[in-house]
């Protein structure tokens, strides 16, 4: 990793990993028709839980199994990640329960849970803030890591990054190559039709909300056990949940586009910090930090409004159709709505 450009790109992949995971979890949930708006709070709460669980597991492994700290790290991180996933799934189940069974508004409940998740994490996790805990270190993937450029960017990462690749591919496979995926999408697009064909709409919504929530929890673990290793108060990852939500829309609920969106955003962030460090450029830091968000809004407007159509009209006709296919995105038609049997 001698080339600074390659190491910057590899850094972007590292930084984007939790975003990719979180956005993928939300994509799964939203494709089933449920909006889990608690993403930001969910991530913070599961990051804290994951850290605490991993930390405690490490302590136990050291004291009772007689391992050294580095020996215990790998296993503790896995246990911590599982703990984080359980927390993420539980928060998501609250959303599912209140919207499906209690018929409450998904947006309202999600919003409240966001605030609650962050505050609860700060409250419960104060004693664990800023102490060194287990984390996983980058591991080169055999063979793949040796591919020039690509290998250096993508395959000299930590386990979380590898999991994120598998997750993106797996989600795509689930959506578009399996029968379960067909049912999942049908439930999010037109639950009445799914019901008429014997698909258990609300059971699937519970299932995929929980599954998506678990994946969001994993994203929390990817923060506290990898990227910004450790747990701090106030939480360092605050705000990223909202970004992940925006990335899902930007990505048009399609796993690969969501992945690209996450990398794009992480790239913008890293660009901002490069500019900050460059001598001779005097820009207000706060303004610079806001830049990626502004760009995000602009791209969102471009992708999900009539502006895209007008832009496409300017281009030559043969280009229009494929570009529209890539850029246009329609949300799952029944997103955020309740399904009740009439």
């Amino acid at each position, binding site marked *: 990793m001698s080339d600074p450009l390659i190491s910057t790109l590899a850094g972007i992949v590292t930084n984007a990993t939790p975003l990719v995971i979180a956005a993928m979890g939300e994509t799964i949930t939203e494709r089933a028709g449920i909006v889990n708006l608690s993403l930001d709070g969910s991530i913070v709460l599961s990051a804290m839980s994951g850290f605490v669980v991993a930390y405690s597991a490490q302590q136990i492994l050291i004291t009772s199994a007689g391992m050294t700290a580095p020996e215990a790290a790998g296993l503790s991180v896995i246990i911590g990640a599982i703990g984080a996933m359980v927390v993420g799934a539980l928060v998501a189940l609250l959303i599912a329960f209140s919207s499906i069974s209690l018929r409450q508004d998904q947006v309202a409940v999600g919003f409240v849970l966001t605030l609650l998740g962050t505050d609860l994490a700060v409250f419960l996790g104060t004693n664990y803030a800023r102490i060194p805990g287990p984390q996983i270190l980058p591991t080169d993937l055999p063979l793949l890591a040796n591919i020039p450029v690509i290998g250096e960017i993508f395959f000299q990462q930590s386990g979380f990054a590898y999991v994120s690749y598998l997750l993106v591919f797996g989600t795509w496979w689930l959506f578009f190559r399996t*029968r379960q995926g*067909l*049912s999942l*999408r*049908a439930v999010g*697009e*037109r639950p*009445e*039709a*799914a*019901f*008429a*064909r*014997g*698909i258990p709409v609300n059971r699937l919504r519970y299932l995929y909300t929980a599954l998506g929530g678990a994946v969001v929890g994993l994203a929390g673990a990817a923060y506290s056990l990898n990227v910004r290793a450790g747990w701090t108060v106030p939480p360092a990852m605050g705000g990223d949940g909202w970004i992940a939500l925006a990335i899902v829309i930007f990505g048009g609920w399609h796993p690969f586009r969501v992945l690209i969106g996450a990398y794009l955003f992480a790239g913008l962030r890293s660009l901002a910090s490069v500019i900050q460090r460059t001598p001779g450029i005097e820009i207000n830091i706060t303004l610079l930090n806001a830049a990626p968000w502004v760009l995000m809004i602009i791209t969102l407007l471009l992708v999900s409004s009539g502006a895209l*159509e007008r832009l496409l009209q300017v281009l030559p006709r043969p280009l229009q159709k494929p570009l529209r296919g890539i850029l246009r995105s*329609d949300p*799952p*038609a029944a997103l955020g709505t309740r399904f009740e049997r*009439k």
Partner: protein
Amino acid sequence: MNIELRHIEKRFGAVHANNDINITFKGGRIYGILGENGAGKSTLMKILSGYQPADEGEIRFDGQLVDYRTPQAALRAGVGMLQQDPLDVGAFSALENFIFGPLSARGLRGKAAQAELARVCERFGFEIDPELPITQVSIGGRQQLEIARLLALGVKALILDEPTTGISAEQKQTLFDALKQLAREDGMTVLLVSHKLEDVIALCDEVAVLRAGKLVGAQVLPATTRQLVEMMFGQALSPAERPRSDLSGASPALKIVHATLRSKRLTVEALSLTLRAGEIVGLAGLDGSGQELLLRACAGLVRLSSGQIWLNGLDMTGESYRQFLAAGVAFAAAGRLEEGLVAGLTLTEHIALSTETGAVVSWERARALTAQLLERYNVRGQPESQIQQLSGGNQQRMLMALTPEQPTLLVLEQPTRGLDVDSARWIWQQLLERRDKGAAVLFASPDLEELVTYSDRILVFYAGKSTEIADVHPQRTSVEMLGRLIGGHFDEVTA
């Protein structure tokens, strides 16, 4: 398959929707299920297709007692229902819509599924491109796909709810041929729920008539329309008439000059149209052929991409919907509860919303006016009930009550959608009264009979192009010809 219904009972609160229904539908025959709105025919069909369980009673298939409470269980027992708006998923391709659910659960996928679909299509002359997104398939095509799916699932009885609304004459012929073939060759039991008596007479072997929740008659066809209407309403209705108004010397209420209209999918080009005060022009065409676009442009809801639009001699090109309203346009959308009325508001609140102009609402005045309007428009509902609690017919009456008394131009999207003959006729009486007071009427409808009965002229749309039938006359203008035009055969028919 023989279907026996014995003592079927269903209540919704105080409404006795199905009152001791006893009937047997025999395999190999096609039945028409008739009745006015609220007669209980949809309820009965929902019970039979598993969407709603009956309160009491039993169902037997070929003598075997069956008990099911979901559509899926009904399918397993052999009954499939084709909904008026096919229950498919817009984001899926035709093939995905074909397999998702029970067929894919049986492992039917990919090439095998495509072959199965092709097999059914070939037998009945259906034309379905499996790769096409379903949003680009016409209602008729989506129906064919749904029928193919139900057949692939092996149903022995098929229920169709208003299948001839919004499809072309050719698609209707294909559908009827397929149903006859299924009954004759496969011994399928076919039940057709329809408001269109002509269709029932053309297709069915027998009819069953429901009125106020009871089965009031069953008859082997042939029968005349008049006899069927008598059975449905307990009395004969005089044929619908449209007294013509004298248009000589009437001033143009609406004038469109060389307009271009664009939507995401469609462009309507070089359209010119003049509507005189007191004139009724009907717009025909399959869904998405351009008539909706024109209608909304005349209401000021869609801007012209080029060309001009004049109301009462005033250039309205590029003006807002508000300006159109101020110029005397009244618009009623097809989606009553989506665009016309506000679900959640009471009848009084609706009246107040459209009549109160000050900052503070005078509820006393609004209540008085509401009582008066409910009486005059024969709306069956309480001033304090919320609009969505009313039946479709009463909602439509309420919508009429909210429409200005003397508009320059009435723009109506499917003014009698989902209404029975009686309610539809009442609505038209109101419209004709407004026409007599000098309003021009522009309406779109998928009901060809309605178009021929009430229009002075008809504009037929096909894929954005239009042709005009001038001087429409119920005796001279045939529904069949209109059906051909809607299917795009402009050249074959000279109006």
